[in-house]
């Protein structure tokens, strides 16, 4: 059973607002009083995935769900999808534009960094049909 569910809209190519959803997620988690390391890991996953939607995804949505066991982030977009998920998970692989790089992103670190910070990551994508990332951070430390 989820204890909290919040969704945030993400606009494609909107670098002015990009990151606002992740900062809202961070704010919610801080207010609840989670462990700072769990907040940092969840915020980084939210931010990296939000930037991916802004850069590659078309418009999308980030949904934060909390239950007693975990922090879940679901990121859906209406973009062109990830053609090769294995390749996208390799550090340094990027299809970012010059504008993305000028903003300080597009180094091919996003998905690998999400994988590093998440306890659970599932990437559902078909070329042409958008992408769906399911990210989980466990609240109990192993």
């Amino acid at each position, binding site marked *: 059973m989820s204890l909290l569910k919040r969704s945030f809209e993400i606009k494609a190519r909107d*670098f*002015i607002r*990009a*990151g*606002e959803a*992740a*900062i809202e997620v*961070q704010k919610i988690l801080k207010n609840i009083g989670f462990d*700072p390391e769990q907040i*940092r890991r969840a*915020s*980084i996953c*939210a*931010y*990296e995935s939000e930037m991916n939607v802004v850069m590659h995804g078309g418009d999308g949505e980030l949904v934060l769900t909390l239950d007693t066991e975990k922090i879940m982030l679901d990121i859906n977009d209406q973009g062109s999808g990830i053609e090769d998920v294995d390749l996208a998970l390799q550090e340094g692989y990027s299809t970012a534009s010059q504008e993305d790089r000028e*903003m*300080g*992103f*597009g*180094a091919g*670190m*996003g998905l690998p*960094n999400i994988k*590093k910070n998440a306890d659970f990551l599932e990437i559902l994508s078909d070329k042409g049909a958008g992408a769906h990332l399911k990210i989980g951070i466990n609240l109990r430390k192993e």
Partner: protein
Amino acid sequence: MKLSEIKDALRAELITADDCLNMYLRAGTASDLMSDLLTGPTNGALLLTGLCNVQVVRTSVVAGVAAVVFVREKHPTPEMIAQAQEHGLPLLSTSFTMFSACGRLFDKGLRGVETKAPRP
């Protein structure tokens, strides 16, 4: 190292959070690549950067960076200042280049975010 010592060493202007001069910075990091900040242990650290856009502020907030110095006389926009103020993030601006700014702080005792030096 205290923020006031960093400000003096870099002859920097403190643009936001002037009540934070006693803040302690545990380490320093320098990058124009925001992705790098999200992959390293940058929480509680000082960031030196030549990149000057709103994503520097957002990345710093998400990564837990404690204060930001813009090098080469870069000056944050009103939007960046407003966001930094909202999050209590000190922003500074210095005329030194990135290399010189890092060197001056290292000379004064500020170290990088590495927990151990790489093997030779």
